[in-house]
């Protein structure tokens, strides 16, 4: 039996996909549907790992998928926090600006307190504690949902049991 492929590279791909989806304004709207982007990243990590496997290797196990999903989640949390900080540094609070533009285009009048809150949000600066808090929350959510994505991957890619063919 050949040794199994390294888990890091498929998890890195999955993690970077999650980070890209979560941190890029506009694209992160995918996550509003029950973290679909994060689930997808965990699922894709298992898919990439499964692609690297050959018939001479031990079959894929649920343990592999849990580890791949969790690792992709950790990578995603760190990379996602860094990317969103960079986006905020370069472009400012672009997500709230986009939302405001849509609201203005649709001629929706916001209550004064909501308007004030949005303006406060647009003036928000990056703080160290804000970054640590964001990283902490990202770690919890990304690990949970990416592991679930990995488990969905296991349900889809697990080796199918081979039943003996009946004669005749």
């Amino acid at each position, binding site marked *: 039996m050949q040794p199994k492929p390294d888990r890091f590279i498929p998890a890195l791909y999955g993690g970077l996909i999650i980070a890209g989806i979560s941190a890029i304004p506009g694209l992160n*709207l995918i*996550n*509003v*549907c*029950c*973290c679909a982007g994060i689930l997808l990243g965990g699922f894709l990590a298992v898919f990439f790992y499964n692609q690297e496997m050959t018939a001479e290797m031990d079959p894929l196990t*649920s*343990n592999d998928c*849990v580890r791949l999903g969790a690792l992709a989640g950790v990578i995603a949390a760190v990379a996602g926090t860094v990317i969103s900080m960079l986006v905020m540094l370069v472009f400012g609070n672009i997500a709230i600006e986009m939302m405001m533009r849509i609201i203005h285009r649709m001629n929706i009048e916001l209550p004064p307190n909501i308007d004030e809150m949005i303006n406060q949000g647009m003036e928000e600066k990056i703080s160290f504690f804000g970054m640590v808090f964001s990283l902490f*929350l*990202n770690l*919890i*959510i990304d690990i949970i*949902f990416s592991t*679930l994505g990995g*488990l*969905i991957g*296991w*349900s*889809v890619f*697990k080796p199918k049991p081979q039943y003996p063919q009946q004669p005749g």
Partner: protein
Amino acid sequence: MTPRRLLLAAAFLWCASIVAAPVLASWGEAWSSAASVLYVMFSRVCHQMDTRSFHIAGFKFGVCIRCTAIYFSFFLGMILFPRIAKTKVSIIDSSLVLVLSLIPMGIDVTLATLGLHESTVFTRMATGIIFGSGLSVILVPTLQEVTGGFLSLVRSRAQKVNLRNLKSEINLRNLSNHRTIIDHTQRTSYAAKTR
């Protein structure tokens, strides 16, 4: 604790937190910070739009209607799983279940985004329930298997630690017994010499 109970407890905690957010918020200033922690946590998984959420005492749930339907139907699927496992549903291919459960939600979201149809409370709930139920059929057996493996690993580690502690306790006891014997022999030989 069995894997099933652990999973049910975790899923119950998640679903209870969704409802706890508006309940805590309605209890006044003292509880509002606890409610806001829950709202911030759930903001990572849902848009939390006021118009698309259920409300309790004027405060919205932690997540929107569709997400609430997904999580609660997943929890219900987890409770009913032993019965579902006995039916033919359990032998359907997982990828087929995943695709079939995703299609209604995909259609609802896509058509609403394109402005061809207006997504209503009913369509959001129905599509959420279908997806959550599908996910429970796919995920519950796998989750039980993985949690079972994790629990047995924890138990075997705990047994090893207990065994090590027991060994060291026995060693210590042996050592102290040995010392008492030595002390006793030293004392008797000293007494004999002085006599």
